[in-house]
């Protein structure tokens, strides 16, 4: 018989190790589907590792992939800290990208030191405003934000498709539904020649630092954490819970919006309706692997990006479907969720006592 005993104090090293163990477990479990698909397991892991870390080019791809995941991971972790369940980072990413294109593809011409902050601001406002809708529906009308944020993702994607086939379509785009390209002043430069890694990564790391300081050192951070721990206790202690939710919603949406800005201005150069292969949803996994900590988000984003980039290269080499990456990501989420048990409880294996009373109690 297994018994859970609440743990009072957890060593921080132990708490740190658990998500790492969870990620490795998920990666190890991928051996089963790889083998089932007829792949050579050890060779597959070799390809994954080499594809993610094996060359300068691979590392550049890895960090380019991690950049949007840092933003969406931060967005989700800030929201989840307050137990505001924002599953809408995907939609917020797209409106952020749309806003960046609206401002940065020729509507305004100014030098880069004005354009870059301007498109960032536009993306943050767009993402934050979009998240404001479900937040207000929650605080004002009590509508569950999980469902509303999820449903809005589909609405936003259709809206983006509509804009790209209509008013924002590039007349020079050979009929493809894509936006006009960003002007060179509104482009985040690449960090190295012939590599895709761009200055969006630096913005992501600065955002991480800002969020870290906000959560650790500011009154807002305290209010956010207190609201997430226990809403009624926070209310009782005089914390303005409603405005905290609104603040969190705005910050979270703005961060996800920045992911969109960084993707169009740094990586793609123009907007298409498939610019994100689910970065918003993957952000949930990143945030959970990070234990909702901003610094953890960076590490988790790099891990998840490595899985995607590595699996892509393995898939090309061995013909095992690249959906294996999504499978690992999903299993990481489940593994890290299970591992959270070990933080909260000691798990003891106890021999069941054979007194009649105990036997009855277990029936």
């Amino acid at each position, binding site marked *: 018989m297994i018994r859970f005993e609440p743990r009072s104090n957890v060593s921080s090293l132990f708490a740190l190790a658990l998500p790492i163990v969870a990620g490795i477990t998920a990666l190890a479990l991928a051996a089963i589907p790889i083998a089932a698909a007829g792949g050579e397991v050890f060779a597959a892991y070799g390809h994954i590792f080499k594809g993610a870390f094996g060359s300068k080019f691979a590392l550049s791809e890895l960090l380019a992939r991690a950049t949007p995941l840092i933003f969406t991971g931060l967005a989700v972790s800030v929201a989840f800290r307050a137990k505001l369940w924002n599953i809408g980072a995907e939609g917020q990413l797209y409106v952020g990208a749309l806003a960046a294109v609206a401002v940065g593809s020729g509507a305004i011409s100014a030098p880069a030191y004005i354009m870059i902050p301007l498109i960032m601001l536009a993306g943050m406002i767009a993402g934050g405003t979009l998240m404001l809708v479900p937040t207000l529906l929650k605080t004002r009308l*009590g*509508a569950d934000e999980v*469902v509303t944020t999820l449903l809005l993702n589909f*609405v936003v994607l259709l809206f983006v498709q509509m804009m790209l086939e209509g008013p924002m379509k590039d007349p020079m785009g050979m009929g493809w539904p894509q936006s006009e390209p960003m002007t060179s002043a509104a482009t985040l430069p690449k960090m190295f020649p012939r590599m895709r890694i761009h200055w969006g990564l630096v913005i992501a790391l600065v955002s991480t630092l800002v969020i870290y300081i906000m959560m650790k050192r500011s009154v807002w951070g305290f209010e956010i954490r207190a609201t997430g721990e226990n809403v009624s206790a926070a209310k009782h202690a005089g914390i303005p819970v409603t405005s905290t939710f609104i603040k969190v919603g705005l910050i979270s949406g703005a961060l996800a919006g920045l992911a969109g800005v960084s993707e169009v201005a740094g990586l793609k150069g123009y907007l298409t309706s498939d610019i994100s292969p689910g970065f918003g949803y993957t952000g949930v996994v990143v945030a959970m692997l990070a234990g909702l900590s901003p610094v953890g988000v960076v590490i988790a984003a790099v891990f998840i990006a490595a899985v995607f980039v590595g699996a892509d290269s393995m898939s090309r080499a061995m013909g095992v*479907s690249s959906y*294996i990456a*999504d499978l690992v990501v999903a299993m990481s*989420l489940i593994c890290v969720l*299970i591992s959270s048990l070990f933080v909260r409880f000691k798990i003891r294996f106890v021999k069941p006592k054979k007194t009649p009373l105990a036997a009855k109690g277990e029936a």
Partner: protein
Amino acid sequence: MEYIDILLSANFWAAAIRIATPLIFGVLGALVCERAGVLNLGIEGIFVVGAMCGWMAVWLGAGLWGGVLIAALAGAFFGLLHGILTVPLGLSQHVSGLGITMFATSVSYFTYRTALPKVSSPPRIEAFQPLDIPVLSDLPFIGPALFQQTSMTFLALAMVLLVSYVLYRTPLGLAIRAVGDNPSAVEAQGLSVFALRIGAIMAGSALMALGGAFLTMSAFDAFFFGMINGRGWICIALVVFASWRPGKALLGALLFGAFDAFQIRLQNEVGAVIPSQVFLMIPYLLSIVALVLVARKADYPRALLQPYFRGQR
């Protein structure tokens, strides 16, 4: 007036019921889980699993009803997983549900891609055909609208009756409803909270999977990536709208189906002026509206989202 003509055509109502069918399965499934106190956000992925497994079973020669059975079993399996994570382990129902959705979706996609690595157009199966019931199917208006649906639609309607019978007329149903409201009282009766909750989640997830199976085995005859497209999330909104009652769930799904069928026909009328995406947004916006309308007075099962640990209040 052409809008009235739309509402009066049997064709329109037949489409409304067809669109409603997967939602009936999905809303019922979500309802059974939530009545037992567990939110199942795995629904979106379980739809995918049902769609993929049902289709693939038939494609491999299991026969249509064999496919239905396999889809339901696959759904129940992912329900079991969600049940273990959320009931005895008491983990976050939100996160676990999202995890199940991601896991179920990626397993389905991976399996499909592995089984069919290089197909340009998805292979088709011989899907359920509309029934031809003597006399009834030939009735004017009602015949084509109601009695020329496939067997799976009738299965969905039968499930509404079954779920409401079990929930309201049997001791098991009483226990399920109680376990979602006041689990300690159920425990005090000597019943197992764990068994009731896990059982309800498995049954509910099997129903959800049938919703997915309907899409690949009745509405269409093939499996496509992204074909579920948020239908699961719509069901989660509709179950609140239906205030956790099977009868209202049927009504909500039919209403939704009617709106959706109407917008498709409207699109044909005014599609030249208004972009098609506006119409495609309507189902999602409608679900949000439905949720918002009832959110304030929604009577959530009282123990929803709350894990239960023995000997602890």
